[in-house]
């Protein structure tokens, strides 16, 4: 299987959050997006700093929530994937 690019990993993470209704726990995200703990830390920092996701605390758990900017990114990414497949790039 081909190695995933950085953008593909970010897309997989955002996709996993969206599929879970826009909210997910950090450990679940790690499994859903097929990431190691270290990878998750690195990419999550990226997502938080670029405001594609945000953290919220609910009782004892910390959840990750996809932002509007994150949803917009996903929409553009899906259009790009469609473009890539259709135009044979």
């Amino acid at each position: 299987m081909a190695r995933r690019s950085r953008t593909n990993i970010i897309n997989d993470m955002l996709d996993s959050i969206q599929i879970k209704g826009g909210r997910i726990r950090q450990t679940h995200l790690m499994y859903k997006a097929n990431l190691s703990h270290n990878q998750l830390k690195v990419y999550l920092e990226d997502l938080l700093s670029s405001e594609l996701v945000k953290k919220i605390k609910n009782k004892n758990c910390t959840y990750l929530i996809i932002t509007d900017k994150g949803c917009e990114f996903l929409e553009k990414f899906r259009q790009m994937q469609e473009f890539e497949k259709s135009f044979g790039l």
Partner: protein
Amino acid sequence: MVTQVMISPDWFASKDMIIQGFSVLVLLLIAAFSTKFYFLKKKENKNYLYFAVSFLLMAISFLWKVATDITVFYDIIHTKQAGIFTITYKTIYAEKILFVAGHFAHYLLMLLGLYILYVVLNKKSTMNHLLILYFILITTIFSNFSYFIFHLTALVLLMGIAYRYYAVYRKNKRKSTKLLFASFCILALSQLLFMPVKLYVNIYVLAQAVQLLGFLLLLITFILVLYNGKKKSNKHNK
């Protein structure tokens, strides 16, 4: 002298510029989105950039042709109205130089654009790019003596591109790729129709109409691709 400069039938002159203007819009739209996707993917996939460059070159090529034709067309009208023999002669001589130079750029940019697109689609190509670029330059130079050579080369490249899309369609079975294959086939057909233009001048109108159809289908395909991407996104949001 005037009929030597313009290939189009008199009644169709200037209308073909509208068709070419539409082609420029379609090509620029696809180039713009490809550039946007290139930056969205953080420059990971260079194919987006090459793809954008190829469409941009084709758009500039048409734009160049339209600009040349507009200048020549309006100058000819001006010359007709002036009606002084010596001045008319000089103007047409200048126009011929402009026409040749303008069309040289049009031929070169169009063939380069088509070649880059062909290379992008043939990822495992082992062709020697320098050699091909040399042949494109030679073709462009000879196209100024006989426009037939330009249309023949464009036809070969377009058929190669259409064949690649057919191969991609056989793999992915996507409706949008099938439409792309159809649009490049139609564009190839238009090049075939452009070839005997000097023998039957009215076929120029048919060739332009077929070209318009090809670009219209390309635009529809592009809109369909964006719509499908958006539809998938909306499905996930629900």
